[in-house]
């Protein structure tokens, strides 16, 4: 009978908390959206599944060795932790608080003490440490994105870089929105949190995760989920804004065909970009450096094997671990609060403002160029979200004029948006990091 009782006391049903239950439902919802509705399935499947695993009661997959040890600890063990951390209280919350705020050396000592008592990091916690806390996964993905990107349309019409710049206004407007909400007492975001939330407006998953992991790791789960969900919703969010800001006549504007770009230009572009980053904004060097490296592998033509690996096998492997690691941040105590709601609302606002500013900039450039050469619809592609945003521009262009193929023209601002949001990320890291 005792054995049966032990089994019951160790079961998930006995131990599950309401928060964990809700988060498992959230994980299932993400899986539903990915599988049934096809929302960014490549990321939401691993994220949703990781979220469910992170909330399995008593398994502690998303927790560090110390967190797991404190969860199961006997009073003697807690006293031991308190001694290592140099505090007098043996309350589990105080111990964890001291652990999270401790210096690196004490942190390591505490972890070793937990290891001595046969407690280990959860599997997802290890994935998170290797993939995201080290910064590796978002950067490797960025390299793969670089290897997949064709800068031809951008090189043919370099002025489209301005559209990519204008769309980044959404990022900074959202930062202001987040600190505004804090000033009004509605939310509690630090300037670092605000910067990390703003990056959602860049519509670039890896950039958002990279910035969040540096500036505000505790919000990473919510930020990544918001970024990827909104990227999947680009075809729903953007068109109403695009229609509202353009006239029928403007949407009908046909653009002249792009000039041919030589191979040498394509090889020199990533190198010029890298040198410009090195000279002006070293803080954006990890992101843009990997991006340029991936692109150079693609364009130089002598390392096709490497380029092929970067844009296929490697990016797929890393995506699996990135997704599971983000899922590990969907634990109930971190995800279920008002801040997540605030992040979801601010994220969509960031997206809308970015889209609107891109279009307004395109309208302005069109006026400057005489009024009949730049279709303002390509402006919305300035938020990155490659290639979804460009496809939306193309679709709306075709609706207005069935001979109007904007896809290649919109790819210019689209990849400009990737560069723009990486630059914005560098500025954020520089100023508030």
């Amino acid at each position, binding site marked *: 009978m005792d054995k049966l009782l032990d089994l019951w006391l160790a079961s998930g049903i006995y131990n599950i908390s309401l928060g964990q239950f809700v988060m498992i439902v959230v994980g299932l919802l993400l899986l539903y959206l990915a599988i049934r509705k096809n929302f960014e399935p490549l990321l939401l499947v691993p994220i949703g599944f990781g979220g469910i695993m992170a909330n399995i009661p008593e398994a502690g997959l998303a927790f560090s060795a110390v967190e797991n040890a404190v969860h199961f600890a006997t009073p003697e063990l807690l006293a031991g932790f308190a001694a290592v951390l140099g505090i007098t209280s043996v309350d589990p919350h105080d111990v964890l608080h001291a652990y999270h705020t401790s210096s690196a050396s004490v942190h390591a000592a505490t972890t070793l003490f937990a290891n001595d008592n046969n407690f280990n990091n959860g599997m997802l916690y290890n994935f998170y440490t290797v993939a995201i806390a080290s910064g590796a996964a978002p950067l490797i993905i960025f390299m793969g994105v670089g290897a997949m990107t064709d800068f031809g349309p951008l090189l043919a019409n370099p002025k489209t*870089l301005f559209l990519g710049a204008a769309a*980044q206004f959404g990022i900074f407007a959202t930062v202001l929105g987040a600190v505004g909400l804090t000033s009004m007492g509605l939310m509690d975001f630090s300037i670092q949190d605000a910067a990390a939330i703003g990056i959602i407006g860049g519509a670039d998953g890896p950039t958002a995760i990279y910035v969040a992991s540096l500036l505000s790791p505790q919000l990473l789960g919510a930020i990544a989920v918001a970024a990827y969900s909104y990227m999947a919703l680009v075809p729903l969010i953007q068109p109403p804004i695009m229609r509202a800001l353009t006239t029928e006549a403007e949407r009908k504007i046909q653009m002249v065909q792009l000039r041919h770009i030589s191979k040498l230009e394509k090889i020199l*572009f990533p190198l010029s970009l890298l040198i*410009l980053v090195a000279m002006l*904004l070293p803080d954006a060097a990890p992101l843009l450096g990997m991006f340029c490296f991936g692109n150079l592998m693609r364009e130089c033509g002598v390392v096709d094997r490497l380029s092929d690996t970067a844009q296929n096998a490697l990016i797929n492997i890393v995506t699996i671990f990135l997704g599971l690691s983000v899922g590990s941040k969907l634990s109930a105590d971190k995800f279920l609060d008002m801040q997540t709601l605030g992040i979801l609302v601010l994220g969509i606002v960031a997206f809308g403002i970015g889209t609107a500013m891109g279009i307004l900039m395109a309208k302005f450039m069109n006026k400057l160029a005489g009024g009949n050469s730049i279709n303002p619809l390509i402006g919305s592609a300035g938020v990155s979200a490659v290639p979804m945003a460009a496809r939306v521009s193309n679709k709306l262009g075709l609706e207005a004029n069935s001979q109007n193929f904007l896809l290649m023209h919109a790819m210019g601002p689209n990849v*400009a948006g990737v560069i723009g949001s990486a630059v914005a990320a560098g*500025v*954020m890291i520089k100023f508030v990091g």
Partner: protein
Amino acid sequence: MDNLLSEGLTLMVFGMGFVFTFLTLLVGVTTMMSKLVVKFEPAPQPKAAPTRSALPAVAQGGSDELVAVITAAVHKYRS
């Protein structure tokens, strides 16, 4: 609180300013790079030139013998 708001405002002004400056410079650098490349390596012409000179060369210098062989082959094929 006001401190935080002014920090946000500074970040916005500086950030947006920097993004625009950087991308403006990139436009400049890219345009310049493209001009230089087009100037020093005019890509389309070398490709076009050989094809134009190659065709007449065959027509003029093509040996009568070759023409005869081809004609014979065509006749054989048709008959």
